[in-house]
């Protein structure tokens, strides 16, 4: 049973070590082909994952779960990994050395994310979180001769280490006051003690929240995001935006809605305020950006704010909305980063006339921006629609949520401004550089997949909504 439950993780570890061995035995092989092969293998693993069924018991001394929620996120991480490996293959010429190591690190980080999806204990949470974070320290500074990349790596390292420290400290407090690190037991104990928990417990909870807030780049732990997004190699930025953020939300949902649900009345106001602050910070910060990766860094802060809205609502719809949002956000962001890799430029002004230079890249980036802004018929629209619905549902009993909904509405309007500024560059401004952009066949295929997914999930939402409903159902919320 234990092997059945962890087979996806095992497969990725085997792939990662295999990549390193291949490189050791055949140094200097075709780096691009290796990347495409790995992307294909991960994609096959993704397809294979649909044959795995949820297991109704906890495994590894109740530390690990393979429920519908875990499977949903595992598939999401596999999808993101396949795309990031593909981007890595396109990006391979720009790395001086260590392309195989790059692929291997991506696969190991992905393994950590898969474990994160199944975490049911604070100890395993910390181990899995560190597996992902430490891998990312290396990945963000992979362009070792570019100071920007090194700066990004250092920033991520220092702030990441600090937030990891907070997390352990918080876990210690929670263990000290309740005597357990297991989420199920914790929920049982908290449920038994009626009333407000003791202050040290609340402190521990807030410290854990700090660590997770760092992963999802929510205010006030968001400072690193724009710099790291800008400096890191583009495939790594994409992985941060799609994989790492989803991992952070998987943990947040699991910790808050499984372990700490009995004390929801204590943490809900905190999340509510953080959500509003994150929305405001991310969206206002993005307005003046000239660099598209930096813009997406701020935008990722903003989107963390939207998704926190769903968590703050503490209802079934909110949880499922966050999961739907993460899935569609993956396609949307991957689409944007694929275009950035293909164009190979980072200033928004260098995207002028992209619609003429390469109609497919122009259309893909435009659709991605429109989906991020939440425009129908794209998937981002329905994602936001669900989140707003969850907030309004919560507002039926607590009118503070109306304020959150109005702040969210304002954020949508502001975000339209900076996303459409990119659209303006693509279609309205005259091109300064009119050399056509060649696109490889796998890249073209990936772009089409993303575009079809964005339109498909926006128009026919039912399959993903049902999957998210099932996955969020594990928390038994109303």
């Amino acid at each position, binding site marked *: 049973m234990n092997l059945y439950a962890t087979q996806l993780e095992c497969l990725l570890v085997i792939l990662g070590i295999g990549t390193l061995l291949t490189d050791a035995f055949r140094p200097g092989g075709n780096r691009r082909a290796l990347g495409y092969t790995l992307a294909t293998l991960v994609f096959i693993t993704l397809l294979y994952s649909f044959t795995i069924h949820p297991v109704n018991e906890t495994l590894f001394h109740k530390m690990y779960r393979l429920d519908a929620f875990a499977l949903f996120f595992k598939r999401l991480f596999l999808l993101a990994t396949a795309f990031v490996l593909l981007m890595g293959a396109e990006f391979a010429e720009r790395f001086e050395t260590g392309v195989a190591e790059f692929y291997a690190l991506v696969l190991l980080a992905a393994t950590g994310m898969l474990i994160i999806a199944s975490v049911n204990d604070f100890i395993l949470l910390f181990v899995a979180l560190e597996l992902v974070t430490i891998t990312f320290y290396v990945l963000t500074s992979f362009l070792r001769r570019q100071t920007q990349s090194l700066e990004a790596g250092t920033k991520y390292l220092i702030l990441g280490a600090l937030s990891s420290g907070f997390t352990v400290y918080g876990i210690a407090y929670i263990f000290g006051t309740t005597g357990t690190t297991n989420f199920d037991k914790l929920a049982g104990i908290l449920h038994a003690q009626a009333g407000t928990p003791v202050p040290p417990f609340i402190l521990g909870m807030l410290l854990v929240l700090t660590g997770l807030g760092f992963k999802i780049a929510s205010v006030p732990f968001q400072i690193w995001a724009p710099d790291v997004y800008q400096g890191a190699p583009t495939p790594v930025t994409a992985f941060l935006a799609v994989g790492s953020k989803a991992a952070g939300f998987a943990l947040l949902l699991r910790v808050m809605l499984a372990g700490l649900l009995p004390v929801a009345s204590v943490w809900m106001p905190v999340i509510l305020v953080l959500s509003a602050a994150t929305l405001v910070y991310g969206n206002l910060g993005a307005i003046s950006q000239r660099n598209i990766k930096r813009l997406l860094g701020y935008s990722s802060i903003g989107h963390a704010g939207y998704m926190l809205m769903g968590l703050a609502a503490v209802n079934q719809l909110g949880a499922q909305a966050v999961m739907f949002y993460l899935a569609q956000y993956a396609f949307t962001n991957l689409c944007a980063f694929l275009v950035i890799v293909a164009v190979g430029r980072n200033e928004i002004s260098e995207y002028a006339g992209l*619609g*003429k230079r390469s*109609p497919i890249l122009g259309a893909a980036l435009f659709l991605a921006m*429109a989906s991020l802004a939440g*425009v*129908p*018929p794209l998937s981002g*629209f329905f994602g936001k*629609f669900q989140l*707003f*619905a969850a907030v*309004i*549902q919560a*507002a*039926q009993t607590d009118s503070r949520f*109306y304020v959150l*909904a*109005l702040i969210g*509405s*304002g954020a*949508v*309007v502001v975000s*339209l*401004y900076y996303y*459409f500024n990119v*659209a*303006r560059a693509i*279609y*309205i401004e005259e091109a300064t550089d009119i050399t056509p952009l060649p696109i490889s066949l796998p890249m073209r295929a990936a772009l089409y997949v993303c575009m079809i997914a964005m339109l498909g999930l926006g128009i026919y*939402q*039912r399959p993903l*909504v*049902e999957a998210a*409903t099932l996955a969020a159902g594990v928390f038994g919320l109303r």
Partner: protein
Amino acid sequence: MENLLTIAILLPLASAFLAFLLPAKKPGAIRALALFATGVSLLLTLYIFSQFDRQNAGYQFVKSIEWLPSFGIHLKFGVDGISMVLLLLVGIVSFCGALVSHEIHDREKEYYILFLALTSGISGTFCAMDMFFFYFFYELAVIPMYLLIGMYGSLPAGKHGRTKEYATMKLTLYLTAGAVLALVGLLTMYYAGGRTFDMVQLRENLRGSGLNQKWVFAALLFGFGFLASLFPFHTWSPIGYAAAPTAASMMHAGVLKKLGTYGIIRLALPLLPEGARQWVDLLAILACFNILYAGLAALTQKDWKFVIGYSSVSHMGYIMLGIATLNVVGVTGAVLLMFAHGVMAALTFSLIGFFYHQTHNRNVPDLSGLARKIPFIGVCMVMAVMASSGLPGFANFASEVMVFIGAWSQGSTLFRIATICAVWGIVVTATYLLWAVRTSFFGPFDEKWNMLNDATTLKQKFPYALLLVVLLVVGFWPRTLIDIIKPSVAKQVLSQTVEPKTAMVETR
């Protein structure tokens, strides 16, 4: 029959997807596709109109597909008298818009994709019976305009140095702000009304649900008011139209704007009758500001498109005043005016587009004696201006009179004053429109306009003639439309809003 309605709505959108797959090197094929899609939609709409049961005030040709059961979302289309008339308006204006789009010679593929998506968005909103899809199509209609204006528009320098990029961004942001505000209201109604998006069901459920209607109504009124260019949220409108390419101005001023007032009539009034009573006085005051303020602003404009842009803001005031009356005559007049103004605005913008395409100048004082060179366009413009000023014989006259009667018979002093203001608004309208048409089309002929070509062939004249004929037919025989609008207004919109006394007011 049910399927025909769905086809009429979604055919342009399907064609937009098809056009996406066609090679950009064949603009002719894409244009033919756009003409085919809008043309067939118009014919289907006319057929549906001919089959429409005039005795039935409820929804007809209802087609419902279960879409997302966990939310209770259905893809549900149907038309009652109000939607029928407005669907007809979309059909006419979109077909004429596609016809006059031959002036576009750059990136036709993107242009027609956006135009077709816009068309489906508008007709989808008018016919949606499910609040989710209402909002879906509403937003779908608002967004293509950003690129249509940005890519194909033009804004002559001089108006405070504003660019078309400024104009299109302002328009998009304003309209989205309104839309999300309305969304908050719609979702509140969804939860208060037992989690259904079905408008008919929701109306039953909201009755006596204890929902505090005051603020929900305000969210809807001002949310949709942004798009309806309700004072003081109208400032995006004139500059947006001025910057837009011809067909986009026609669609936006003619039809898209009506989505705002349609949203108020379709959702706010019938679903929130309590809230409506609390806000109509303010709405009437704002409507007067629309009529007079925008009218006076139009007096000072020099650019033809700004004149018509402000004029359209001013006319929206009459529609809003009609809505505020909350009686059958006033609201029916408002719906008829939505139709009449839609056709008239489309006609005016298409005529401006015709000569601007050749002169590249639409500054009224620079133009002179154009009627000598382009008599057909001149005649059409005179007729359009007459219609706009509310001359009897045009559809606008009948509808404006109904609005005035409705407002006057509403009874309160406020509405009497508002009616007087509105009637004076007509004088203002006539002043600036007659000035503009006299200066640019009559007077001494300027030799530099010698190169102008008139619309000579039937093909060229057709779109303008079609719009004009519609205005005249409805003007002389308004009962074709009033007879189907009125029962629906009474039953679908106002049956809970009005006290029995005012509901009895009869015009004929």
